[in-house]
């Protein structure tokens, strides 16, 4: 088998390798923020894979929703923890630039790959030959999977409510009841 660097397969394997390496880094990193960065890379790599597999819509969603929205959520959460007390304490801040090296390398690898794929006509042809486009997905989604969509929406709603409820500061009903009890106590005793 002659190794053709320009083929879709090679691109896919490369993207896959990036995803694997980035994921490993996610799992093994000490620093939360670093891990998050690697996670972004991993997600992007997966998005490339999707694209190469003929699912540009999914790839887009992966980038927008996952790498965009969910990861931002993570970042906010990490901010709220005030990670100075957590594991960042053990990860020295001095190597500030070095933090970026790994993700940068991987991300640029991906970028190169993507550029290459877009640039190559051969690959473009092959890709468009077997694409499953958003129209098909949309039809199916709002056709036979309508119920699943409804359920997913409920899930999201529930996630919203629960997220709100849990993340709320502690000054709620509990303390109100507690203070009332305190107020009542002298009268009853």
């Amino acid at each position: 088998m002659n190794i053709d660097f320009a083929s879709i397969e090679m691109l896919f394997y490369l993207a896959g390798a990036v995803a694997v390496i980035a994921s490993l880094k996610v799992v093994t990193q000490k620093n939360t923020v670093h891990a998050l960065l690697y996670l972004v890379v991993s997600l992007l790599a997966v998005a490339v894979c999707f694209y190469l597999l003929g699912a540009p819509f999914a790839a887009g969603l992966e980038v927008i929703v996952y790498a965009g929205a969910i990861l931002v959520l993570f970042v906010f959460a990490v901010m709220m923890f005030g990670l100075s007390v957590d594991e960042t304490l053990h990860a020295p801040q001095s190597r500030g630039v070095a933090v970026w090296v790994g993700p940068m390398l991987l991300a640029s690898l991906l970028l190169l790959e993507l550029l290459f794929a877009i640039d190559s006509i051969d690959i473009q042809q092959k890709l468009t030959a077997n694409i499953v486009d958003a129209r098909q997905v949309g039809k199916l989604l709002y056709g036979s999977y309508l119920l699943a969509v409804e359920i997913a929406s409920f899930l999201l709603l529930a996630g919203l409510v629960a997220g709100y409820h849990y993340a709320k500061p502690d000054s709620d009903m509990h303390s109100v009841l507690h203070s009332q009890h305190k107020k009542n106590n002298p009268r009853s005793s």
Partner: protein
Amino acid sequence: MTAIPLAHVLMLASILFAIGFMGVIVRKNTLFMLMSLEVMLNAVGVAFIGAGSYWQQADGQVMFILILTLAAAEVAVGLALLIRLQHKYQSLDIDKLNSMQG
């Protein structure tokens, strides 16, 4: 038909899944566990997309979208819980959260 064999796609999915799973088991920090979970969900997504493109069906992508929603909801609730825990215990160590004893 894409040139990428389905087996390789699934292999990639498996490797990612395994890595994520390892993260869930190994890491004590709950935040990392959540991230690992994301990796696992992603791996499943890969598998679905791969299968969808293999058979040229849209169902794979539909499933991926559902996974996506699931991940979003899970992360929202999970992170909220984490914030709560952080407030209460000043720690994200999952091993300290076993007061229910199963």
